[in-house]
C-alpha cells in the first residue's frame, strides 16, 4: 500500500467518524429502552419519555441495568426530574398547557451506581458506562449475585421500586448481629411486623439447630406472644416452636404450657439496677452504692426493715435518705410481682440464649420505669454471664430494646446499655435498638451500629442523624427513605455491598410459608420409632 492510499483511507475513516457524530441519536419511545446521557462515576443520568404508560413509569428506588460490552452496571434511581433541551422554562407554552417543542422534552432520571458485574462477580464501579449505553429495568437474573452475599436471617424480598423480586430474599448475616442492629421507623411503618419476621427466621434457625445467636425480645405491648385479633404472634409459628421460649407476667398466659411465669429472684437484684427507676439525688446514689458493701447479702429485704435503715444510718447516711430509699424499694416490690424470694427465670433465659433460641419476655401493661428496670437487670445479667463464659463455646446474644432513645439517648443515665453498645461485641452481645427518633440517640453509640433497617422517617433531622452515622452512604437515599411505604425498608448491613431496598415479609404470610416448607424432607426421615414394651 502506498502512502497516498493510506492517507485516503484515513480521510475516509475521519469522514465516517464525523458522520457518526453528526448522526442524531434517537431515544426510543416505543419501549422502555433508554440511554445514558450523563454524568460521572458517582451519578448517572438517563432520559425517559415524558409520557409513558403507568406500568412504564420510573420510580425512585428502582434498579436499572446498563450493559456496556462485558460490564453490566447497576444503578438505583434516586430522583426523577422534568427536563428538556431548552434552558429555563422555555419548554412550556405561555398558557402552561402545552409543550413548546414536544420533540425536545423528556424526563431526566438521576441514578446512583450500585456497582458493576463482571463475569458474574459484583464489584464497586471505578468507571462509567459509555455515553448512550442502553439502560433497561434490571431483570431478576441480574440480581443473582446478591444471593451469594445474603445472610441467613431472612426478612423479606429484594424490592425494585415498589415491586418485590421474590426470587431474591433479603437476609441479614448472623455474624453481623454483635455489631448491633438499628431499626428506625415512624409509628405504623411496620416495626413490630419486622421484629416478628426477624424472630420467626431466628426461630427457624434455632429449631434446626443452625442459629448462631440467641435473641432476647422484651415486649412491653404484649403483641408478640399471641398477637391480637387477625395479627398473629410468635406462638402461632408452631412448626418452629422449639426455637422459642416465652416468659410472661400476664396471668392470662400462665395456663399455656409453652409460657413460663417470669420471676426474678430477690437475691439477683443489685443496687445499681435501681438507678433507672427514679431520679436519685447524689446522696441517695451514694447510699445505694454503699448498700452492697454494708449488707453482704439479702440487702433488698434488710433495707426495708428498721434494723437495716439503722445500720445504714450508723454508717453515716442520713435517716431521711434511707427512709426514701426504703419506701421506694417497698413500692418496687409491691409493683413488680415477678420478684420472688426463691424462683428465678434468669438461668433459664441465659441458657436458652446461649443455645441460640428466641427468648420472648412478655410484659404487657408494665410501667415504663419497671420495664427499664427489668431490661437493666436482664442486660446486666446477660453481659456478666457472657463475660464469665466468654471462653466457653456459646452462641452470641442480641438484646432488643424498644424505644431505644430512652436508654441510648444523649445524657441518659443508663450506662449499662451504653456499655453493651461499646463493649458487648467483645463478648458476643449485641443490641437491637428500635426507635422512632434516631436523632435522640447518641451519635457515638449510633456509629457503633453496623446494621441499619430504615423503614421510613418523615423527620429530616432523623434522616440526617442516621446518614451521618451509617456504615453505607445513605445520603443519596434521602428521597427514597422519605417515600418508603409501610413494610418497605432500606437495609444497610455488613457483608452486603450496598444498602439493599427490601420489601419486608408480612408476618402472617411468612408464617404460612414457614409452616409449609420442607414437609417432604421431614416425612422422609420421621417414619418408624422405637416403641418399648410397657404391658
Amino acid at each position, binding site marked *: 500500500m502506498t502512502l497516498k492510499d493510506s492517507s485516503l483511507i484515513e480521510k475516509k475513516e475521519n469522514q465516517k467518524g464525523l458522520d457518526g457524530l453528526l448522526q442524531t441519536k434517537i431515544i426510543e419511545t416505543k419501549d422502555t429502552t433508554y440511554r445514558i446521557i450523563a454524568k460521572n462515576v458517582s451519578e448517572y443520568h438517563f432520559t425517559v419519555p415524558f409520557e409513558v404508560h403507568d406500568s412504564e413509569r420510573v420510580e425512585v428506588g428502582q434498579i436499572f441495568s446498563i450493559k456496556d460490552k462485558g460490564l453490566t452496571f447497576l444503578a438505583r434511581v434516586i430522583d426523577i426530574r422534568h427536563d428538556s433541551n431548552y434552558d429555563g422554562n422555555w419548554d412550556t407554552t405561555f398558557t402552561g398547557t402545552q409543550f413548546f417543542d414536544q420533540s425536545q422534552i423528556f424526563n431526566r432520571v438521576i441514578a446512583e451506581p450500585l456497582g458493576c458485574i463482571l463475569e458474574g462477580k459484583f464489584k464497586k464501579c471505578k468507571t462509567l458506562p459509555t455515553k448512550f449505553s442502553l439502560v433497561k429495568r434490571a431483570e431478576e437474573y441480574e440480581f443473582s449475585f446478591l444471593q451469594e452475599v445474603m445472610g441467613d436471617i431472612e426478612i423479606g424480598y429484594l424490592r425494585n421500586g415498589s415491586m418485590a423480586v421474590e426470587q431474591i430474599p433479603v437476609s441479614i448475616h448472623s455474624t453481623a448481629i454483635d455489631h448491633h442492629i438499628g431499626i428506625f421507623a415512624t409509628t405504623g411503618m411496620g416495626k413490630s411486623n419486622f421484629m416478628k419476621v426477624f424472630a420467626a427466621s431466628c426461630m427457624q434457625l434455632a429449631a434446626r439447630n443452625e442459629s448462631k445467636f440467641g435473641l432476647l425480645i422484651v415486649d412491653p405491648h404484649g403483641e408478640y406472644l399471641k398477637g391480637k385479633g387477625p395479627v398473629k404472634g410468635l406462638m402461632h409459628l408452631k412448626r418452629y416452636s422449639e426455637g422459642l421460649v416465652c416468659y410472661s407476667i400476664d396471668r392470662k398466659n400462665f395456663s399455656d404450657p409453652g409460657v*413460663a411465669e417470669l420471676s426474678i429472684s430477690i437475691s439477683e437484684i443489685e443496687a445499681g439496677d435501681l438507678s433507672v427507676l427514679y431520679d436519685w439525688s447524689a446522696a441517695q446514689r451514694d447510699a445505694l452504692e454503699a448498700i452492697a458493701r454494708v449488707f453482704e447479702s439479702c440487702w433488698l429485704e434488710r433495707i426495708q426493715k428498721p434494723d437495716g435503715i439503722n445500720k445504714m444510718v450508723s454508717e453515716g447516711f442520713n435517716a431521711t435518705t434511707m427512709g426514701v430509699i426504703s419506701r421506694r424499694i417497698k413500692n418496687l416490690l409491691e409493683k413488680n410481682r415477678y420478684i*420472688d*424470694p426463691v*424462683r428465678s427465670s434468669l438461668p433459664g433465659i441465659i441458657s436458652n440464649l446461649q443455645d441460640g433460641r428466641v427468648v420472648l419476655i412478655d410484659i404487657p401493661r408494665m410501667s415504663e420505669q419497671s420495664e427499664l428496670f427489668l431490661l437493666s437487670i436482664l442486660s446486666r445479667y446477660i453481659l456478666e454471664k457472657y463475660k464469665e463464659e466468654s471462653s466457653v463455646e456459646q452462641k452470641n446474644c442480641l438484646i432488643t430494646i424498644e424505644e431505644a432513645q430512652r436508654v441510648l439517648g444523649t445524657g441518659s443515665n443508663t450506662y449499662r446499655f451504653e456499655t453493651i453498645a461499646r463493649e458487648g461485641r467483645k463478648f458476643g452481645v449485641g443490641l437491637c435498638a428500635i426507635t422512632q427518633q434516631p436523632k435522640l440517640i447518641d451519635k457515638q453509640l449510633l456509629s457503633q451500629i453496623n446494621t441499619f433497617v430504615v423503614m421510613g422517617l418523615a423527620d429530616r433531622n432523623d434522616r440526617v442523624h442516621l446518614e451521618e452515622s451509617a456504615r453505607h452512604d445513605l445520603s443519596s437515599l434521602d428521597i427514597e427513605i422519605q417515600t418508603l411505604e409501610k413494610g418497605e425498608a432500606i437495609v444497610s448491613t455488613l457483608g452486603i455491598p450496598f444498602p439493599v431496598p427490601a420489601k419486608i415479609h408480612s408476618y402472617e404470610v411468612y408464617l404460612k410459608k414457614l409452616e409449609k416448607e420442607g414437609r417432604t424432607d421431614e416425612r422422609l*426421615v420421621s417414619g418408624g420409632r*422405637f416403641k*418399648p*414394651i410397657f404391658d
Partner: protein
Amino acid sequence: MKIIHMADSHLGFSSHNRVDKFGRNQFEEMVYKGFEEAIDKIIHLGPDAVVHAGDIFHNVRPRIRTLYVFKRCLEKLSEAGIPIIIISGNHDAPKSSSSTSPFVIFEGLRDVHIAHKAHYERFEVGDHLFHCIPFCLDPKDYLNEFGKIERSGQDVLVLHGLVEALKGKKLRTIGEHEIKDSMLKSDFDYIALGHYHGQVPISNNAWYSGSIEYFNFGESEDKKGILLRDLDRFEAQSISIRPRYMVNCQPIDCVGLSSIEIKEKLMEICSREVIQNMIVRINLKNVSRPAFKNIDYASFNRLKALALHLDLKVAFLDEQENRSEAIDKSNLHEEFAKFLKEEGECERIPRTIKEDAIAYGTGLLKKAVVAQNTEALDATQ
C-alpha cells in the same frame, strides 16, 4: 395432706469395687439399706402419701435382689396404709423395643400408683390429684403431655428431669431431659422433681428432694435426704436419712514437695476419724512424677482400708493439658451437615440436590444416633 417427696434412689447402683463378706458390692448394699431406712422413717412419720419422682432403679433391667428389696419396701408401706406414687426416670425407663419396663411387675398392687408408660397419667390419692409425667421418649413430648393436665384445684405435679435453672449442672447421663420453665406453674400445690441429686428449692412450690446417697464426687457438697411437704400449709421440711459420708478434699499444691512431704500431707488429711467408712477424694496438683513414684504407701494404704472408698486424683506437674475436643457422638448429625455443606461449597455435590441431601442425610443420621444411644443405655447393667 402431708406427703413425703423422695427421688433418685438408684437401687442396684454398685461402685467402688469393695465387697462384703457375702461377696456383694458394699456400696450397692449401702444403697439398699439407705432406702429401707428411709421407708422405715417414712412409716414412722406417717404421711398421707409418698411420691417418688423417678429413678427408683439404677437401670432398666434391675437384678432380682434389687427387685426384691424394692418389693419388700412396697409391702412395708402397704401394710402401714401409705400409698405411693412413682414415676419412671431416665435410668429405669425403657427406651427401645428390646426392653420391658421393670415396673410392669408392680402394677396392680394396692396403693401403688406407677406412671411409667412414657405418657401423662394422673392418680387421685387423698384429697389431691397427682399429675405424673414419667420419662418420655422424646424431649418434645413433655410439653404435649403437660398440655393434657386438667387442674382440679388441689394438684401435685410429679416430674423427672433437669429444670432450666440448673442447666449448668447437667449430669450428662443419656436420656437426660430438660424440664421447661413453662411447666413449673405456680398454681400447683406442689411440684415434686426428680433427677438432680441435691436437695434444692426451685420455687416456693417446686423442689428437688435430692437423693439419699452420694453417687459421685460432684455431689459431695449437696444436701441429701427426703422432704416432708404439707400441701395445705405450703411448708417443706427436710429429713436427713444418714450423715454426710462423702468428702472431696480441696486440692493440695505439691509444687516443690518431696515424696516424704507429700506422704505427710496425705497422712495429715487421712486421719482415722476423717476417713472411716467414708468416700473420700484427695486431690493433688502440680505433683512431680519422681516424688510421686517414691512415696511409701504402706501406712497410707492401711488407712485407706478403713475408708469405704479413697480416691487419689493426681495432676502431674509435667502433664500436658489435653485440649483436643472429644467427639460428641450426640452431635454427629451436625458434623455431617457441616461436612456436606463444605462439600457443596466445593461443588462436589450438585447444587440442585444439595439442600435435599443435607436435610435428608442429617435427619437420618440424627435418628440413627438417638436410636443407638437409647439401645446402648438399655443394654447397660
